[in-house]
């Protein structure tokens, strides 16, 4: 079965050429050209990944992203022609996993797609404990006191990566490389925004994090590991 990608862009030629390109890369695709259509196709088509243009008629891309995130962790890559850094931040905060700026390089796009698709990772051990939460690696579930916490695959992998080597401090660049599959791409906002989103879900007090700790000037590391 081919992996399904939903392409959302109001420019039909971009939609078409993306479809051509992604089919050649071995994906199954469908194109939506508006916000409402994107939500409709998402339910109907059940894609494995969404390529989402931010500039959409009807409902804009950020709203679409937020709606999808309300019930699904499906990886979302924003396609953005906007250059206001604030737009990218808004998109990431709305739950997008990653972004590519138009006009993008097709190799970069396929690398981003592959990186998002490769989750979830196969794992050896069964579970990890960080602070007072438990990461069940087989079931892909994170829970506190037996109550599951809903994480997107990206957030799960971010937490897993930090927890897998608890004594190590990960620089933002290292996380970009390991979690997002980037090389030498130094947009560390990606890491900052997703760490914030992750914290808002797993921390009891976001201002006093115990699970994902900041090491000033270096990066992040996991909190105290408890063997579960």
């Amino acid at each position, binding site marked *: 079965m081919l992996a399904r990608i939903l392409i959302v862009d109001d*420019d039909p030629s*971009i939609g078409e050429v993306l479809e*051509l*390109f992604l089919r050649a890369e071995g994906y199954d695709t469908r194109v939506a050209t508006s916000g409402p259509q994107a939500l409709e196709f998402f339910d109907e088509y059940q894609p494995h990944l969404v390529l989402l243009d931010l500039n959409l008629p009807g409902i804009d891309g950020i709203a679409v992203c937020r709606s999808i995130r309300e019930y699904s962790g499906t990886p979302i890559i924003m396609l953005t022609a906007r250059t206001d850094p604030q737009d990218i931040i808004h998109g990431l905060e709305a739950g997008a996993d990653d972004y590519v700026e138009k*006009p*993008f390089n*097709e190799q970069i796009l396929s690398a981003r797609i592959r990186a998002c698709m490769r989750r979830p990772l196969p794992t050896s051990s069964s579970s990890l404990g960080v602070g007072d939460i438990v990461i069940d690696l087989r079931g892909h579930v994170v829970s506190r006191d037996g109550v599951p916490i809903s994480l997107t695959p990206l957030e799960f992998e971010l937490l897993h990566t930090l927890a897998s080597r608890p004594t190590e401090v990960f620089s933002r660049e290292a996380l970009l490389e390991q979690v997002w599959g980037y090389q030498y791409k130094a947009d560390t906002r990606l890491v900052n925004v997703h760490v914030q989103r992750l914290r808002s879900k797993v921390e009891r007090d976001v201002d006093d994090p115990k699970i994902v700790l900041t090491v000033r*000037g270096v990066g992040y590391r996991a909190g105290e590991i408890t063997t579960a």
Partner: protein
Amino acid sequence: MRFFARIVRQTREAWVGSLRLRMTAISVGLSLVAVVAIGGFLSYTIERNLFESRRNEVISETQSVSGSVQAQFDGAINAQGFIDVEGANSSAQATIRATTNSPGLIGFAILRAPGQDTDQVMTSTSSVGFPLTVVTDALRGAVHDDRANVHYQSVEVPGESPGIVTGTNIDVPTAGRYDLVLVYNLADVAGNLAFVQSALATGGLFFVAITGLIVWLVTTRSIQPIMTTAATAERFADGNLDERINVEGTDVSAKLAVSFNRMAESISGQINRLATLSTLQQQFVSDVSHELRTPLTTIKLAGSMLFKQRKTFDKDSARAAELLNRQIETFDELLAELIELSRYDAGAAELELEPIAPAALAQSCIDQMATLARAQGSTVTLFAPGGHKPVDLDSRRVRRIVNNFLSNALDHGEGGPIEVWVDSTSSAVSFAVRDHGVGMTAADAERVFDRFWRADPSRQRQSGGTGLGLAIALGYAKLHGGVIDVWSEPKSGACFRLTIPQGDAVDPVSPLGLPPIAEETDA
């Protein structure tokens, strides 16, 4: 000494800094000179008048006394032609006492003129307490030389007050010539004079003080419009282009205000027009760049798909696909840089600071360029005498600058060694990239930051540079409050150095030389 120097400095500053103070000081000085001159003249004239009238009084009294005394002696000769000189002397003294009424007579004396040989001698006499010392030989000589007139001399009488001595000749029958000497104290005249002088001085001082006050007030009033204008101009210069002066009346200060307002109006009009033009232009560049992105996205994807399948095309179509793909890349790069630059021009670029070690940043730039460096045959070496501690930088933009330096160095370094330098102090962090390639002339070095300028037009396409790289680098440096300095010599290579101030430092000295020399920091 230091205190004194401070006083001098403060005075000089006040003098240079306050028009009002200067005006007041000058007018006080000048009126003081005038008052001293006028007062001195008045005082001198009054003094002369007072003393002259008193002298005349004294002289006329002496004349009348001497007349009476001479008559006394002449009348003392009896029928036989004899004279009782001592008796006559006594009556003469009585006459003197009776006829002098001028104030201030201290005493009198009838002194025998020296150098005479006469039938009889009358004893020289003087009144009680007569100050014999004030009678000089000069006076007595004058009396001797001119017997007809009264002679006088100004002296200081006991008690240290000014006085006057008069002398005249008396001929005593049979006893020869005698000098009648009278001494007067002029203390009362001196007292009057002192009073007049002190009144003059007091009046003069009041005059000077009032002049100073008047000038101070007048200057204050008349520089008020200037001060208002200066303050308004200051605010105008600070960018408040709407600042204007309230115009009151029609005098010269109102004219100043009107002229200033017209100038301000004209300047702000010009500035607004230019700003609008510039904004429109920037907006246009920005809009065009953004509008180009969407079609370019499609073109790029389609082009690269064609490029990938070129093996299945005939020879000419395959070549066309190659050319298409390569030029799309150039177009893409150019567009990306135009967008970066227009974002900076629009002032929309904001720093995203995060702590990062400059040396680590430089190392990762070198790693990123490793493939290109190998292709060019250059070895890139990092020298980091400092910069190992994290500082707040916009790492994406600093990386962009250093990468630009590096790719320029690789482009123009002719395969020679390239040095990347990093150092920091408490006031600045600096990155420098040095190559040993073709270098540039000083004239070229001045133009490297110009948009679309290329050092050597014949080489421009080798690395596909857009000609915007250094312009963007300079923009990003300025965004950090930093500067980029260039050193270059033809055939010796070039060095680009970025210096970013740390903390509140303004225009800090770069920790690196230009170009940095290895020996400097080896120790």
